[in-house]
């Protein structure tokens, strides 16, 4: 569904992505793990057109989308749950969700998806009129995911959804990710929490300072020595 070839991103003199290759097949969960500053967010940003790619190609269902405006990405069915949630603080939960459906016109379908999101996150339903900024961190993350789902994505990209959340809430969030996946969603998941990510993922990539150093099915990466040492904090 999404094919990235030799993608490079420069920020001024900084070479943040040094030609990476990545593939997200339909109906799969693919995860990209790596340390701080490895270039994970940059990958997602360049897919969404939020950061300029300096080289390489990004194909979505065969169509070249590299460096196209973000509006086009959203209408094609790519959506990003940004790092740090970035909910609209002074707007209500419901307004936030409607903003996710900003490019959609069909009112009936929007209402249908709104109800689906409320089913997935009953805690949001209790808080429709609450200002997003007053939600707890976990609730804000749910809102950010719900908001992204409102755009009816084909490919859902999440940038560290477990960031700063208590272990129990992290479990909830990953439960939701699986649930969304069961509904037929293709997911590209970025995580520092390698264990949780590799558990749900069909396939994983390890990114280190702008280059992919390892890749393989989630289960295999889980037991890989290097991954265990570097990301799972286990020593043998």
């Amino acid at each position, binding site marked *: 569904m999404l094919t990235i070839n030799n993608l490079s991103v420069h920020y001024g003199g900084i070479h943040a992505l040094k030609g990476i290759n990545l593939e997200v097949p339909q109906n799969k969960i693919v995860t990209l793990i790596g340390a701080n500053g490895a270039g994970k967010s940059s990958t997602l940003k360049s897919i*969404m057109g*939020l950061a300029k790619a300096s080289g390489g190609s990004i194909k979505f269902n065969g169509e070249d989308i590299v460096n196209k*405006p*973000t*509006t086009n*990405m*959203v*209408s094609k069915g790519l*959506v*990003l749950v*940004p790092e740090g949630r*970035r*909910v*609209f*603080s*002074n*707007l209500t939960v419901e*307004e936030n969700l*409607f*903003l*996710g459906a*900003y*490019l959609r016109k069909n009112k009936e379908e929007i209402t249908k998806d709104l109800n689906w999101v409320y089913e997935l996150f009953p805690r949001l339903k209790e808080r429709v009129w609450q200002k997003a900024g007053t939600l707890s961190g976990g609730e804000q993350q749910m809102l950010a995911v719900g*908001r992204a789902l409102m*755009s009816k994505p084909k490919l859902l990209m999440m940038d560290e959804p477990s960031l700063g959340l208590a272990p129990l809430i992290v479990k909830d969030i990953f439960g939701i990710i699986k649930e969304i996946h069961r509904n037929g969603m293709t997911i590209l998941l970025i995580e520092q929490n390698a264990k949780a990510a590799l558990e749900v993922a069909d396939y994983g990539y390890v990114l280190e300072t702008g280059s992919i150093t390892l890749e393989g099915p989630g289960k295999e990466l889980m037991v890989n020595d290097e991954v265990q040492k570097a990301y799972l904090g286990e020593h043998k």
Partner: protein
Amino acid sequence: MKREKVIQSLISIAAVIILLVILNKVLTPFQARIFNLGGIYIILAISMNLINGFVGLFSLGHAGFMAVGAYTSALLTMSREAKEMNFFLEPIVPWLLDVQLPFPIAIIIGGLMAALAAALIGAPVLRLNDDYLAIATLGFSEIIRVIFTNTQSLTNGALGLKGLPYIGVTDSPKEAIWWIWGLVIITIVFMVLLINSTYGRAFKAIREDEIAAEAMGINLFKHKMMAFIIGSFFAGIGGALLGHYMNTIDPLLFRYLLTFNIILIVVLGGIGSITSSVISAIVVTIAQELLRVLDGKMQIGSLIINGVPGTRMVVFSALLMLVILFYQRGLMGTNEFSWSWFKKLPFKTKKAKIS
């Protein structure tokens, strides 16, 4: 639910009309003047609030757009004789000499010219952020003023224009209240509809978080441009009303001080709320008139203070600083008036009694 809202709105508009009829009868000319100026400031404050409060653009160009609106409408409504009398240093450009349009058309063209200016200036400056945008728009506003001071045969330069026709289609000052407050209602209704539309939601999203808004597929530049142009259109209308109401305009009237006055209203009321702009515009206009005493001679007991002109503005500036320091949300933050307040009222008092 929706029907209920429409009915409520219609009732309140009818109430305002009845109120206007009564006020037009009972107000002294001095009171009517404050009331009408308050109305004009409502239009100006709401239009600035759209740009600065709802979209969160730090723009300081309001006086410039007002000047464009005011001069356009003035030149389009003044009679040939009036123009000949004004332009004694250098004759007016011939193609403008005989143009004389009815007031409603002229004022709309005034608004459109301001919107056009916004479209031209917006394309380059709206890509800037925060302080840079503020400086660029402030610069634009001053440039407009300098241009108007120097285009003698078009704007009569520093001499300004005197004897602008009264607001309205008959030549009577009594008509003003209807036009001004009619336009106030139109502006409020339009803004409320705009703010509650999908566009309005996108405006607020941009204010809250540009990156997240962009990630939702919102075209930042398009929406900023749209708000900037619409806001400037109403600034042009407000400027035109102000010019006609005062019968005289000159470039000095449109200094940054005028922009500052409107910022004062918007910030005191609450950035991002239409209701607060309305209330604040009236309060500030009344207060500015009442505090005029500060500028004149004062007698407290046997002590006579010779007023210093400008004291009034010092008081207001200090007030603005206090609000920014201690009460940034203004009078009512981003909250809006709603009928449900009245429904909640008895409930609240009950709760208070129990506790």
